[in-house]
């Protein structure tokens, strides 16, 4: 058959009154919205599946969606210990970009970027992917040099990136403090116009709805208690809803990857760290792009609701508590007010923490393991959200074919044995 699975999926959606559009909205308004159907079934586990994805976050749900739509594997389940998107998917600052230094990173994040660009239509769910641009600013000679290195590499990888002068930035971001006589003056920056943000919850819900429509079982409130092995092969997942048999198990449980690895008797080079973020009260638009600064350690954007969304770096200690220490937001907000004096008069509305998997080289792990049929997708650190579609797409490929494709291959676990890391820590700091 010629028709691709995605087309079939989408058509299936269109045929049904489940399809979302301005027209269905109007039709439903007519009957007081009593006719809307469930976005996804609340499935109970079957005895066995062709593949089980552990983790109902964006990456896990995307993996299931692409397994079904690209690899025809529809007898699969996603199991989630809590509620869909309750982990880092619903806790991040939703920044999307693909302007990375190393080729390996560029290829996977750009792969994701291309999928983002058509995702709302693929899923028939408005994930509000907003390409308002991501501007990374430089505050020192050293950072300007680092920026030049990155932009050259990014451009040669065929990814859009423009260098902005302070004058350009003044025009592009009127509220930014462009005084050159401050401690960290804004001396320049580079902009990825195709970068931006998306509505994080909608990403999880959209993938869940589309996967469910192709027959994927989505099982919430189902916690994994063990991984059933037969020798060196995985055969099933023990859960609070009983044993679920499967000879292919993909683990996508950012924050808790080490816990699952432990159940399988394997280890990962991962530390779970708190990552904090916060939003201000909603105000009328003052910032129409995303700003990142490594030197003063903060990133900021304004949500469609009007809230200023701010994030910083990870806390310094391991934690599974989804909470960090006060000095982190303290320093983040000092930096924010230094760069955007207008924020001084706003108020912090919500503050929260997530648990991120951090790898020694700040790059993810997408890999087979010593256990046949057991696959891990983890270690995305603070940057996982932007990769969601690409991550799910290549992970589905790995699970379906039991071998990584070219994009995923560099992210195999054995890089820690060979030492061929993909070090995205960026500049090694100033010297001389």
């Amino acid at each position, binding site marked *: 058959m010629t028709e691709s699975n995605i087309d079939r999926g989408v058509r299936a959606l269109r045929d049904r009154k489940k399809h979302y559009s301005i027209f269905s909205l109007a039709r439903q308004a007519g009957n007081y919205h009593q006719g809307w159907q469930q976005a996804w079934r609340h499935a109970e586990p079957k005895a066995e599946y062709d593949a089980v994805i552990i983790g109902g976050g964006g990456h896990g749900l995307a993996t299931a969606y692409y397994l079904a739509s690209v690899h025809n594997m529809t007898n699969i389940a996603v199991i989630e210990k809590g509620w869909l998107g309750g982990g880092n998917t619903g806790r991040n600052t939703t920044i999307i970009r693909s302007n990375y230094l190393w080729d390996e990173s560029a290829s996977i994040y750009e792969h994701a970027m291309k999928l983002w660009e058509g995702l709302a239509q693929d899923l028939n769910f408005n994930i509000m992917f907003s390409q308002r641009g991501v501007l990374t600013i430089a505050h020192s000679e050293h950072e300007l*040099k680092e920026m*030049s290195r990155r932009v050259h590499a990014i451009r040669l990888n065929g990814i859009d990136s423009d*260098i902005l002068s*302070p004058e350009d930035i003044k025009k592009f971001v009127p509220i930014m403090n462009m005084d*050159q006589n401050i*401690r960290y003056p804004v001396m*320049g920056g580079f902009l990825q116009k195709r970068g931006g943000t998306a509505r994080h919850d909608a990403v999880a819900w959209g993938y869940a709805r589309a996967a469910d429509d192709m027959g994927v079982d989505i099982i919430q409130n189902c916690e994994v208690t063990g991984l059933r092995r037969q020798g060196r092969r995985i055969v099933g997942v023990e859960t609070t809803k009983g044993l679920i048999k499967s000879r292919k198990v993909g683990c996508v449980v950012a924050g808790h990857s080490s816990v699952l690895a432990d159940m399988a008797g394997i280890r990962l080079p991962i530390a779970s760290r708190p990552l904090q973020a916060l939003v201000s009260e909603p105000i009328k638009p003052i910032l129409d792009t995303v700003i990142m600064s490594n030197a003063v350690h903060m990133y900021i954007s304004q949500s469609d609701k009007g809230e200023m969304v701010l994030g910083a770096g990870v806390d310094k200690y391991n934690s599974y508590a989804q909470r960090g220490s006060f000095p982190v937001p303290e320093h983040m907000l000092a930096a924010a007010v230094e760069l955007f004096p207008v924020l001084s008069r706003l108020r912090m509305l919500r503050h929260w923490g997530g648990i991120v998997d951090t790898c020694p080289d700040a790059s993810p792990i997408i890999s087979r393991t010593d256990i046949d049929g057991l696959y891990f997708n983890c270690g995305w650190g603070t940057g996982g959200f932007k990769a969601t579609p690409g991550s799910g797409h290549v992970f589905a490929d790995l699970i379906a074919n039991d071998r990584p494709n070219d994009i995923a291959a560099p992210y195999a676990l054995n890089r820690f044995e060979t030492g061929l890391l993909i070090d995205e820590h960026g500049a090694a700091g100033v010297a001389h």
Partner: protein
Amino acid sequence: MASSNSENTRDSVPNAQSPQASALPEILPNPEGGAAGLSIAKVTGKTLINLRCDDKIKAKLETLFGAALPTQPNKVAIIGTRRALWLGPDETLLMIEEEQEAEFMLNLRAVLGNAHYAATPVSDAIKIFRLGGARQLDVLAKGCALDLHPASFKEGDCAQSMLSHAAITLAADSQDSLLLFCRTSYSDYVTSWLKDAAVEYGYILLDNA
């Protein structure tokens, strides 16, 4: 040179400290009347020696120094104008009169011979301030997480900590004055910070104490 766009920033290079911090005057009267809440005095004419050695060797120096060097954490030995601050289990900061340095070091070498120790002059690496004033603790509390309440930080106590972004050492020298030690290259920052923190209470900068 470095990157295609950096040219246009080259001639507008930042001059570090913003006006705000350095603009504050040497003296700011207490806005609510009365004496300034904080006094900051540079302490000069002292020699500082960073002493690395274990307690046994400390004991050997009691006679030379004039008092037993502290072996209890965060304690100060006080004898006349001399101070010995506990910085770590094998690290002590000695403060003596400058004119006594040569003789003191000579005797120290004589007393310790080839024992394993390091006595490193750091007089030029560290600046000393004497803080006073009715609000000195309120000012410090703005940037220092130590519990400096008189009940828990008494004469003869010292502690290393942070004053906002600068590492400092504090010694409770007497009921109403504290010694503050910081690295020379941070002293501008520390004085700017203290002045700014004391705007509520008023302050006075004294040249010597």
